[in-house]
């Protein structure tokens, strides 16, 4: 008798996803749908008016700019630090690897609020960053780092770094180190090996790392409110305030939908781009 692969719908294994599907429908899809409806509903039915009003205010473009710029910088910083760290982690000995994994994962159990307060101590005018910069002679006098964009990017990158390291690590540890050696025996320079062998192989990890960090930092709410304060609005701080303070559900849902659309577009776009780049090599 010939074994026939059961269709996806009849496969009883698919039922295992049922709890997750029900859970997501209730706590995610339904509120999301409500949010979408709210943002498109006006006194006379469906309308684009909230979006037109939002987009025609130059201040709101600044808010969108703030949101994307900070998220991009956080992602860049996380990538620059996280990519080499993932290699160190993947190639470390067993004991060292455990130590490194614990030191990457354990800080995740400390809330963002606590970390934000810690950054306040690090970044303040008599903090360690100032002391180092003045000790090196790079600064003549203490500079204010707290409540600046630089401070926000540094703090947020610290909090989101594990989300960059871990996906890259999970891919790097699967790469056979002999591949680069094989390349070298064929006369490839280390740089050539890296760009043509290692980097393409790590792209899936890089893409998920970037997607994680970017989505987390584009939507962060507590961290900017503690590290930069009320004078720097992002889409999520604007959304939070519309619901919590101004009781303006329409504005809140409009900004939330714009944020969601931007985040999804950038994550999906970068995944597609990486897929194309990866496919070429």
């Amino acid at each position: 008798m010939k074994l026939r692969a059961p269709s996806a719908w009849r496969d009883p294994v698919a039922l295992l996803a049922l709890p997750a599907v029900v859970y997501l429908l209730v706590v995610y899809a339904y509120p999301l749908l409500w949010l979408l409806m709210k943002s498109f509903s006006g006194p006379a039915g469906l309308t684009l008016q909230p979006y037109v009003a939002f987009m025609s205010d130059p201040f709101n473009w600044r808010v969108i700019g703030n949101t994307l710029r900070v998220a991009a910088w956080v992602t860049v910083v996380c990538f620059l630090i996280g990519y080499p760290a993932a290699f160190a982690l993947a190639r470390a000995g067993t004991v060292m690897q455990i130590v490194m994994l614990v030191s990457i994962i354990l800080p995740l159990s400390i809330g963002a609020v606590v970390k934000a307060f810690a950054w306040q101590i690090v970044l303040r005018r008599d903090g360690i960053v100032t002391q180092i910069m003045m000790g090196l002679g790079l600064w003549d006098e203490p500079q204010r780092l707290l409540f600046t964009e630089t401070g926000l990017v540094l703090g947020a990158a610290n909090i989101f770094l594990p989300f960059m390291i871990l996906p890259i690590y999970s891919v790097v540890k699967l790469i056979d180190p002999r591949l680069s050696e094989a390349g070298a025996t064929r006369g490839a320079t280390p740089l050539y090996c890296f760009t043509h062998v290692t980097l393409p192989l790590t792209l899936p990890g890089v893409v998920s790392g970037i997607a994680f960090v970017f989505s987390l930092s584009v939507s962060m709410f507590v961290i900017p409110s503690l590290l930069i304060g009320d004078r720097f609005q992002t889409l999520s701080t604007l959304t939070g305030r519309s619901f919590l303070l101004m009781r303006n559900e329409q504005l809140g849902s409009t900004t939330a939908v714009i944020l969601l659309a931007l985040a999804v577009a950038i994550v999906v776009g970068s995944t597609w781009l990486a897929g194309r780049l990866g496919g070429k090599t």
Partner: protein
Amino acid sequence: MTKPRAIALNRRTILAAAGAATAALAAPRILLAQAKELVVGGAASHKNFVETIIAPVVEKKYGCKIVYEGTRSLVNLEKMQKNKDKQYLSVVQMDDPVMIPAVAEGLLEAITPGKVPNIAALKPGTIHMDGMWVNYLQPWLGIAYNPKAMKTAPTSWADAYDPKYKGRVILPSLQNTEGLANLFMAAFLATGKPMPEAQKDIDAAFKKLVTIKPNLLTAYTQMPQAYNLLEQGEGFMISSAISQVALERKQAGAPVDIAVPKEGIFAMPSGVALVKGGPQPELAAAYINEMIGPEVQAKLSSVTFSLPTNKDTPVPAGMPTNATMFGVDWKFVADNRPDWVKRWDRDMAM
């Protein structure tokens, strides 16, 4: 139109279900009680003083049990809205700005001297909208400062604008209630008009307020952070700070003190009201009567570092006795605040 409405109805159904679930959870407590019981809704942070100061007095005198449900003002408002036909709260302690929508929706019952005799002893300006709510305390707003960083205490609200405090001044965001004082004071400093008039001139207020920007360390939304910065010496002063918070920190030994500027101080909201159609109306009136009576007032004001609203109650030691107390027109605030916050975002942005 139909679709959004269907969503709204669904949401309402879910809210109602959630309300029913809450009620079901609360039910055993109500069933167990044998004596008369009075449910008071209020801020979570008030639970301590309600249960240790107000409740014992009322319970002893009236042989009843006070159940205090501590949450946020807006949640109390929602509880009253949801249970409009069958209220279970008898008394609400909410911020004045939240009282206004509650009055507008007919959720509150006026407090009259017939029901609450002690209302006659209240200071002027503490009875609002013909007795729809009264203030049972006056926490006040001054300037909190770090005495280690500032050798001389600030003496005027204008000090926060002094260029020598570049990058050292902390302001509350305008979305925090205590942040409103800076706006009104800016108008007062800029126009020189009397406060009731000045606080209506919001345009002048913003034009003055933007000049403080070089001095700003930050505008906070989370108050503990502001005190953290102040106590570490990164910030020198919090312009417009709540007496209760600053003095609690001082008492705990932190390098914090609060100055009473020469122009005057602002009264912070602290309202109490009768819920219309709430159970045990006589007991509810008695609760408020005790709350604004001299015995409870004396204890309450010293524990909360606030001014009593009963004029027969002595002002506790360490509190300003003859400072000008500015009232805030909460109706005006409620009507205009979203526009002010919008302008604040634009004008005060980095």
